[in-house]
């Protein structure tokens, strides 16, 4: 359970008798400590041993999807509290699902049929209403015209021609009337215009079409969807036209309904249709009730079935990864597991064998391998989020030193250096405590993207908040207000009137303020120069110590992997180089702080390079400084070629020796697994390309030398961000809160307070903390981890049922 090195892993071969295979895998899935290797990668999915079972599972999950869809349509949500009786197994479930599906489909098809006739009847009713209206209105208008004609008739009777014409008309009229047929029906509204157009074209305008809009939605009998429709009536003459119109109606999906122009018949039809509609309605309602009952019962068990099915599916996927032995009696599994879990796995397999009443026990066998094992850290709820920060950069190489251990402290600390304000810290702490206290509740809920991120990092945020309270106390900032928490300020006015406090300055009257920055500094003219100098120097000290830590970790790595070349020709010159330049700077800073000297450190550092032999003059901090500087400079100069040259040549020599020894003796001594491993890795590169190795080393050296300067400069972001934070918060305090306070108006004050709160939360708490977070992240990923971290491993990904629940399998 050591977080610095990843768990020792081993490649294990399991030989499982076929009858207990399924149960063994299932138990291993419950245990969740075994990563299976796919031994059947070359086989296509349907050639695998358990392809038919996977297919069955797929079929069942299809049925479940169908149920889910139907439940969604019927507004029934699957109950979350599922009764886990666990007695149901896959075969029973399959039968049950098939039964339920058949029942559901039957009910649905019955309902559909009923609904179809119901919709048709409704449409018919609409046609009867609308067309009836049309006919009656037409009759009324015809009657009035008739009357008008009758009124007119006597007057025209006198003329000679008219009666003849009238007579002709009356004789011709009935003949035509017999031929004039009509078709009634409904057509969807979007199609009504093209429908009319096509009718017109097809019959050359020899039809009379009348449409009436149906105000509300109509359920289309064929598709069952809600659509807007128009009722139409077409008058035509001739059989050919009729067949044409019928064809066109078919083409447009217009439903035709018979209609009679006889009023009494109309009435009869109307009553009949209405009766049937009522009858059908009750039948449909009963059917729907039956269906929703069925869906309800499905809903009770749905989650349980779904879970079971997903488990089974994943088990079969794993089984498909196993190698079936030639005898077909047992399955061969290979995979990684942590060494500590060996006995657990053995016990689990034993239990599976017992539960299956199997004759043969499963065999666990540890294999020797040259492969790089996966990286596995046993993290807990607190450390996992920190480990995730590291994993986001790269998964650690197997058993490489894990920066995650140090990140737990250094990350929140560097964040807090940039976010130093104990007022803001308390706000953050309260927010994150809310998440931590309600942890259990939040686990079950589905959170939004942003909230999920905050919840996932709640322990990081808690640490960050605690540390920013600490640094805030050091900076003596509480929403940019200083407090005299640890006793009185050390400074006082020269005289009781305090006239010249802002011009000449204060004098020290008491002992130094015991903890952090003296509150009297706040608001003075020299506040910024003082804080800048403090924070800048502090950033350099922090940076140099963190980089040193990184280099030291590279030593532990080299020692752990027994790589002497890396110790002597990488670690040693690196640490000498860094410390002879920036370690010396840190030393100077500390000495200057302790002695209170006035020396100019820029000058010292610059002239250390430009003219190391010159006299330091007033900038001398301690005796023998010049000699020390010359020695350090020489050391730094020596360490650069030291870093660059020996390593590639030594590697070449090593390679040649190994090659020679290989040609003499093929037998390898493998007593230390780790050593054999490192050899194994080298063995893979049979070709030793010297130029490549040398160029690589050259790049590495240049990167380190330049990086030493640029990384140290990069740590100055600690100062910059902390400055920005304190200035911003003082701006909000002075220019919003104090300004509005000055107006002596309650409304202005309330507005001011609201603006202040919004600015504090939005800008300082959210945006500033995000930016400080990102900068802290960068300092870790780039400045700290590039000193030692390889990060080219891969993560241990065990087969486990707990990860199944998170993802939605459907």
């Amino acid at each position, binding site marked *: 359970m050591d977080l610095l090195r990843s768990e020792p892993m081993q490649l294990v071969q399991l030989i499982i008798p076929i009858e207990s295979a399924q149960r063994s895998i299932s138990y291993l899935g419950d245990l969740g400590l075994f990563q299976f290797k796919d031994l059947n990668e070359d086989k*296509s*999915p*349907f*050639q695998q041993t358990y*392809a038919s079972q*996977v*297919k069955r599972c*797929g*079929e069942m999950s*299809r049925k479940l*999807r*169908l149920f889910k869809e139907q439940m969604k349509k019927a507004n029934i949500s699957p109950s979350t509290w599922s009764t886990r009786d666990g007695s149901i197994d896959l075969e029973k479930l399959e039968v049950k699902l098939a039964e339920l599906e058949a029942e559901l489909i039957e009910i649905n098809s019955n309902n559909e049929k009923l609904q179809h006739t119901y919709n048709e009847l409704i449409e018919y009713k609409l046609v009867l209403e609308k067309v009836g209206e049309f006919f009656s209105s037409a009759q009324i208008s015809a009657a009035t015209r008739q009357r008008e004609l009758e009124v007119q008739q006597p007057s025209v009777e006198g003329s000679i021609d008219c009666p003849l014409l009238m007579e002709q008309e009356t004789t011709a009229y009935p003949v035509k009337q017999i031929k004039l047929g009509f078709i009634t029906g409904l057509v969807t509204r979007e*199609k009504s215009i*093209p429908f009319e*157009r*096509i009718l017109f*074209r*097809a019959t050359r305008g020899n039809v009379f079409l009348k449409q009436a809009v149906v105000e509300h939605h109509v359920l289309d009998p064929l598709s069952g969807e809600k659509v807007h429709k128009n009722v139409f009536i077409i008058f035509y003459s001739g059989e050919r036209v009729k067949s*044409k119109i019928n*064809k*066109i109606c*078919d*083409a*447009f999906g217009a439903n035709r309904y018979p209609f009679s122009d006889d009023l009494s018949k109309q009435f009869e039809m109307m009553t009949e249709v209405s009766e049937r509609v009522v009858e059908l309605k009750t039948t449909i309602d009963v059917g729907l009730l039956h269906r929703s009952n069925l869906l309800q019962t499905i809903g009770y068990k749905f989650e349980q079935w779904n879970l079971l099915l997903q488990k089974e599916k994943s088990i079969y996927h794993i089984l498909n990864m196993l190698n079936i032995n030639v005898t077909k009696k047992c399955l061969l599994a290979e995979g990684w597991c942590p060494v500590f879990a060996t006995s657990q796995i053995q016990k689990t397999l034993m239990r599976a064998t017992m539960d299956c009443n199997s004759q043969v026990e499963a065999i666990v066998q540890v294999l020797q391998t040259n492969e790089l094992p996966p990286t596995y850290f046993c993290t807990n709820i607190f450390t996992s989020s920190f480990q995730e920060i590291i994993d986001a950069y790269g998964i650690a190489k197997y058993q490489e030193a894990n920066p995650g251990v140090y990140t737990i402290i250094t990350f929140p600390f560097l964040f807090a250096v940039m976010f130093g304000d104990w007022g803001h810290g308390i706000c953050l702490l309260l927010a994150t405590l809310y998440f931590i206290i309600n942890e259990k509740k939040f686990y079950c809920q589905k959170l939004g993207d942003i909230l999920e991120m905050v919840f996932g990092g709640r322990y990081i945020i808690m640490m960050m908040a605690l540390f920013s309270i600490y640094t805030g106390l050091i900076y003596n900032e509480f929403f940019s207000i200083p407090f005299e928490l640890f006793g009185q300020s050390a400074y006082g006015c020269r005289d009781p009137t305090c006239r010249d406090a802002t011009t000449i300055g204060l004098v020290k009257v008491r002992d130094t303020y015991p903890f952090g920055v003296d509150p009297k500094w706040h608001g003075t003219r020299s506040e910024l120069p003082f804080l800048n100098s403090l924070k800048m120097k502090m950033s350099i000290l922090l940076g140099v110590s963190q980089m040193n830590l990184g280099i030291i970790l590279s030593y532990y790595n080299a020692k752990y992997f027994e790589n002497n070349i890396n110790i002597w020709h990488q670690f040693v010159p690196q640490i000498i180089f860094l410390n002879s330049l920036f370690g010396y700077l840190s030393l100077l800073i500390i000495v200057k702080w302790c002695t209170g000297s006035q020396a100019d450190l820029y000058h010292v550092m610059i002239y250390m390079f430009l003219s190391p032999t010159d006299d330091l003059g007033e900038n001398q901090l301690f005796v023998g400084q010049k000699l020390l500087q010359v020695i350090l400079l020489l050391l730094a100069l020596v360490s650069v070629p030291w870093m660059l040259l020996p390593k590639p040549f030594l590697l070449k020599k090593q390679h040649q020796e190994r090659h020679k020894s290989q040609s003499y003796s093929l037998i390898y001594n493998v007593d230390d697994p780790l050593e054999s491993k490192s050899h194994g890795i080298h063995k893979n590169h049979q070709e030793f390309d010297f130029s490549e190795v040398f160029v690589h080393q050259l790049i590495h050296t240049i990167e380190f030398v330049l990086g030493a300067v640029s990384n140290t400069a990069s740590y100055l972001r600690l100062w910059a961000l902390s400055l920005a934070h304190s200035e911003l918060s003082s701006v909000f305090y002075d220019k919003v809160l104090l300004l509005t306070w000055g107006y002596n108006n309650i409304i202005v004050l309330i507005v001011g307070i609201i603006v202040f709160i919004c600015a504090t939360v939005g800008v300082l708490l959210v945006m500033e903390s995000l930016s400080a977070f990102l900068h802290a992240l960068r300092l870790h990923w780039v400045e700290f981890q590039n000193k030692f971290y390889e990060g080219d491993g891969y993560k241990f990904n065990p087969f486990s049922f707990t990860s199944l629940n998170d993802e939605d399998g459907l």
Partner: protein
Amino acid sequence: MYGFEAMTFNIHGGYLEAIVRGHRSGLLTTADYNNLCQCETLDDIKMHLSATEYGPYLQNEPSPLHTTTIVEKCTLKLVDDYKHMLCQATEPLSTFLEYITYGHMIDNVVLIVTGTLHERDVQELLEKCHPLGMFDSIATLAVAQNMRELYRLVLVDTPLAPYFPECITSEDLDDMSIEIMRNTLYKAYLEDFYRFCQKLGGATAEIMSDLLAFEADRRAVNITINSIGTELTRDDRRKLYSNFGLFYPYGHEELAVCEDIDQVRAVMEKYPPYQSIFAKLSYGESQMLDKAFYEEEVKRHCLAFEQQFHYAVFFAYMRLREQEIRNLMWISECVAQNQKSRVHDSVVFIF
């Protein structure tokens, strides 16, 4: 101006080009086809396809599958892709995309008209139509009795209308005249599409003219082969060839007088790009010609993806997907009818 599309192409076309290239990487590979060819049942095929982009379309199909279901669902995927792209497209890409479907429209019109001629049910015919070539009043085609009616009633509203004037005759429809109509329409369509692409200019014009020229030449060869031994006169045959492509104009003269397949072959072998097609075929073999053409077409369409900033990728993608669906149909038919030995006869590997 040619060569400067790179500066402005991505303003409107960048997103869709990315989409279409993503779709292209979802096409089945040779490895997929090899696996599919080993399938024993249609369920195996479904299982294999579930790992591809067709997965979501097939996963809710109940188990006794039919070839038609597979093909239908796969086509649905193509149609969805197409509709998505069409929705996102701006001019002139949207017009370009619409042009791609006109070929299907012509096929659908011909299908319905022939179907009604043979007194098939309209609904049944509609199901057989390619969904990309559907238009509103397509079902009304059944009403028409002759070409003039066909045009006046229905097609005047469709984008095919401008292609029609050449084939309006008032004679009644029969198989021959429908076939001639199809080819006349296709000729007009290809020429129009060709002109449109030339108007777009740049890499689109260059690549599309190559692809369309191949299409036109293939049609010319097919027309020639199919019209050998029919009452179609040489002049009529000549009229059906599109007025561009490698064969235009001299090859057309020669094709017009061909009397058997070997003469066609002699004509084609004069054109270097088509020599390779015949390299694999022995004399007198016309069955394999289709496959050879398809293979050549697929090769050309794949090459269209090698260049960026042009519209031909959309055309190529649609054609490749259609070829893939044809392949799937063939494989599933072979599997369903237990003719697995013939699987490789007509499958054209895309990659």
